[in-house]
């Protein structure tokens, strides 16, 4: 099933595009994607204008029923008045038809997340068709403002879930990481620990050096010893992380 997040992305894109072309605030909601039955497809395309957009991953068909088409055209002209009724909707004039196609072309680019075309709304090619051939998924956008109209979108197939290009290691080499050195201190009794206060000193001297673990983002990356080198504190690596199993054994 088409992911809801993808349809939400389309809806938001359509809203922005319509707000731009209609020059008015647009309130739009989304109906969840579904896979209609044959009878349902007949109801969906009945009395509707169909506009196909060929994408790289799938073809999308925009379905606009007659009264919704009229409402969109009215909105484009900035007209008031009632245009929504289930029956008795008149056919569009040639000018209105051209306006409808222009409105659809304006938001056609927003379908990129589901059909894979380039997100260039102006260049998105649309073609009017008469029948739907083998659609699978269908979802609708409900326009509430500036006019009540519904825009259906049928997809020829489910978008394939693919992996994008991975980041190469080379591109990560310049990333800065915060390091933490975790020292292994001497043992201390609980009573002594309880009496620690500002100004108290805890002796860190150990018989076998000053062992510590170097961590990055919580992951141990090396094991070694803390000390002073050239008058600066330093961590001397004794066992790097890439030496397989060495850190695991150490911990």
């Amino acid at each position, binding site marked *: 099933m088409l992911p809801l997040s993808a349809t939400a992305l389309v809806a938001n894109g359509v809203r922005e595009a319509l707000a731009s072309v209609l020059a008015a605030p647009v309130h739009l909601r*989304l109906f969840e994607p579904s896979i209609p039955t044959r009878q349902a497809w007949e109801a969906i395309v009945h009395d509707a204008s169909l506009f196909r957009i060929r994408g790289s991953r799938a073809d999308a068909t925009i379905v606009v029923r007659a009264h919704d088409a009229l409402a969109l055209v009215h909105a484009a002209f900035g007209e008031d008045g009632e245009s929504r009724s*289930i029956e008795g909707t008149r056919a569009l004039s040639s000018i209105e038809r051209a306006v409808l196609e222009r409105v659809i072309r304006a938001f056609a680019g927003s379908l990129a997340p589901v059909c894979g075309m380039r997100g260039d709304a102006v260049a998105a090619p649309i073609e009017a068709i008469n029948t739907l051939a083998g659609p699978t998924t269908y979802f609708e956008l409900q326009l509430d403002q500036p006019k009540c109209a519904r825009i259906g979108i049928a997809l020829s197939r489910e978008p394939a879930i693919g992996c994008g290009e991975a980041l190469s290691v080379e591109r990560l080499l310049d990333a800065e990481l915060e390091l933490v050195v975790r020292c292994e201190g001497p043992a201390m009794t609980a009573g002594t620990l309880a009496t620690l206060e500002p100004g108290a000193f805890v002796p860190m001297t150990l018989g076998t050096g000053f062992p510590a673990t170097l961590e990055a983002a919580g992951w141990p990356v090396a094991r070694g010893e803390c000390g002073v080198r050239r008058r600066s504190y330093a961590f001397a690596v004794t066992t790097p992380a890439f030496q397989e199993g060495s850190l695991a054994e150490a911990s």
Partner: protein
Amino acid sequence: MLIDAAIASASERITERVDDVRATYTPGAVPRFDDVATAQSMSRFDPDPLRAAPPEGAYFITHDGRGRTAYTRDGSFGVRDGALVGEDGRAVFGFATEHAPLGALKLDPVDVALDRVHDVHLERDGALVYTRDAIEPRSGTRERERVTVGYLALARFPAATKLGSVDANHFVAPPGDVPHVGRPGDGAFAFIAPMRREASRVDLDASLIHLKDAYLALDALHAAQTARMGINKTAMDLLK
């Protein structure tokens, strides 16, 4: 054999009285004879949200299957093929919008086809309403929105108008009579009562008494005819 006109009339009266008795338990039935009508309409609670009782003196509007507009007080509705229909399956009329002409009330066909229609019910102002789920794309929150399909229409006839019967609870207007048509709660009509079902206006006791009277009248006519035939025969015998 010739049937006496008076006896034929009495037989027809019995048939009509039987029809009234039969309609005693038909919801929204109105009797043929006013003498068996209850003083006022009554309705009973019904849990079906597509049931409604009309205001006093008002009728829901439908058709009789022969192209004629029909009127009924039986508010036992349902949804079939996306349209509001009466119990007989015929479309019930209303107004899709405030300025729309009278017509069948139809749910959005795509909502019906995609099974988005929930909680279809009638409200006291005659509104046929359902709910459907929508998603706000920016926040992803789901909302249940209310969709008004339209409003039931009501009709009222001038007082003393005698409607023609289609069946026990469907009637047609007499030729030339045009009812006043409006919406529940529009000022001319009172509100409807949702989830109630109009009972029959036929009083069972009264209808049985009058049926018995009709049979007695037929018996009396039979007796009178028999006596008349006997007298005629006697007269003919005397003449011979």
